[in-house]
């Protein structure tokens, strides 16, 4: 009954605090929409200049996806490159083809280089009459970077906002003196922790459902597996955020100090969650991922959304998340013990 009362109170507080509710439900949607617009844009079509190339070569290259323009001298091409009207130009120099790049924007450089690769591949194929085909075990050629890190982001936003709101909420309980009321009541310490988990749990469930539905059905994020597993993973991750937020709030004296945990705890866990490739990372720091809940959630999310795997394959990662929550909850009860002296 006391657990229910606490859960009910948290729900009431949420209902009265429309702004926090908006932060939890609307902010992730807004950011995910922006990210999808940024990363879903069409690939850059390189503008290539050709200097004194024979017409058959020009015609051949025009078959590949590029905006080709012809130049009569190196100097005019160079000028065009400086002005930014072309991304690169090709010229003959002592029997070899030289690619001239502006070079300050990696995206442009990459687009030009892959066009050249594609072009060379096509020449070889037509010269020797063998086709080179690419087969994808998971994903596809049309899969873009948003599809790749989208699943991680869906988990991250659930994690981030729940962490912040639960942490601040519990911090206020402490600084506002209401925690004293709980301590002076017959309420058991575990009831406080469980009450919080249930009260916030309802909102994390709604949040997870909104974020996942929106990402998959509106933003058209790649979705190979079951929607239910995405929801399950997100909710379990939210529970770790909730219990971790409450735990860390014990080490903050005000809201600002709670915000200070973002660069210390949240941002590093994003770096090591798998958004960036961990294999290229120095082994001195790559182990950090393995101690953050987001790392396991990201693996499970990608397994479901990109690889279409089921419960059997993701259960280990989910169990780790449950383990994190249980550990944080236990630590929370211990942290609360210092307040109750009798």
């Amino acid at each position, binding site marked *: 009954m006391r657990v229910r009362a606490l859960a009910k109170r948290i729900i009431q507080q949420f209902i009265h605090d429309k702004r926090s509710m908006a932060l939890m439900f609307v902010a992730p949607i807004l950011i995910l929409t922006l990210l999808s617009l940024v990363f879903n844009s069409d690939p850059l079509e390189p503008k290539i200049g050709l200097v004194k190339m024979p017409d058959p070569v020009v015609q051949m290259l025009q078959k590949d996806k590029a905006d080709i323009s012809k130049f009569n001298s190196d100097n005019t091409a160079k000028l065009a490159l400086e002005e930014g009207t072309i991304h690169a130009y090709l010229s003959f120099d002592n029997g070899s083809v030289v690619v001239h790049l502006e070079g300050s924007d990696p995206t442009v450089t990459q687009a030009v280089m892959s066009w050249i690769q594609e072009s060379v591949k096509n020449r070889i194929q037509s010269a020797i009459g063998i086709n080179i085909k690419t087969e994808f075990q998971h994903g596809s050629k049309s899969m873009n970077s948003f599809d790749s890190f989208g699943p991680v982001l869906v988990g991250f936003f659930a994690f981030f906002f729940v962490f912040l709101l639960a942490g601040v909420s519990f911090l206020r309980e402490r600084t506002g003196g209401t925690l004293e009321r709980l301590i002076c009541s017959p*309420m058991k310490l575990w009831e406080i922790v469980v009450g919080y988990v249930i009260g916030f749990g309802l909102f994390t469930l709604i949040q997870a459902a909104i974020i996942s539905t929106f990402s998959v059905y509106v933003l058209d994020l790649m979705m190979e597996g079951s929607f239910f597993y995405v929801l399950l993973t997100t909710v379990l991750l939210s529970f770790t955020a909730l219990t971790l937020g409450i735990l860390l709030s014990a080490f903050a004296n005000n809201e600002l100090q709670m915000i200070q945990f973002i660069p210390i705890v949240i941002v590093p866990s994003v770096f090591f969650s798998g958004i960036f490739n961990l294999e290229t990372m120095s082994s001195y720091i790559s182990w950090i991922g393995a101690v953050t809940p987001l790392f396991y959630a990201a693996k499970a999310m990608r397994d479901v959304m990109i690889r279409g795997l089921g419960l059997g394959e993701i259960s280990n990662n989910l169990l780790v998340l449950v383990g994190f929550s249980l550990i944080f909850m236990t630590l929370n009860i211990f942290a609360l013990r210092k*307040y109750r002296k009798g």
Partner: protein
Amino acid sequence: MNLSYVSIRNITKSFGAQKVLDGINLDVRQGEIYGLLGPSGAGKTTLVKMLTNLEKQDSGDITFEGINLPSSKVIHKIGYMSQSDALYQELTAGENLDFFAALFGIPAAKRVIRIHEVAKVVNLQDHLKKSIQNYSGGMRRRLSLAASLLHEPDLLILDEPTVGIDPVLRQQIWTQFNILKNQGKTIIVTTHVMDEAEKCDRVGLLRDGKIIAEGSPEEIIKEAGVSRLEDAFLVLGGK
């Protein structure tokens, strides 16, 4: 009447190097209003927190109905109003009271009745639907007092209950304290306001972690050989 309803023996407490309580001895009788009088920083709050599980003495014994405090066993018999108002800002007054009542396991049907009763005590029965954000300082203080009465505690511990409350309402609240007292409840109240201490049955003068005088306000005035409690405090404190 139980002359040692709450018994406090040789209590010491230090925070780091600072000794806050230094050998406190006092007895609170059942059914009286006991005032702990002292300047801020004298250790009043620290002492009453030991009765409510929030603080633990370094040495010495506190017993309440034969149970050593701090203890969770008798917590349901004790009502505590802290110095801070300790209310949920986002909730309405009624929702606050409903939550605090539920913490003490009061069934839903009875909660409605109790909320109405305690709200009436502090004259807030018409403001229960208001959010705490729209409450004045005095209203918050009164609601905080109402919250501590919800579970009909036998022992009521009030830490500076009438700070920020106007004289008319203060009078009303003290009338309520006397009604509660006549119902057999015991009240311990901390204050640094002299005229409030004069309304107590007995007071303990707390200064620098020690009880420097104890008795009814009249006894203390007589002992000090002065005409006002305020002067008595200065005379006895100077010893």
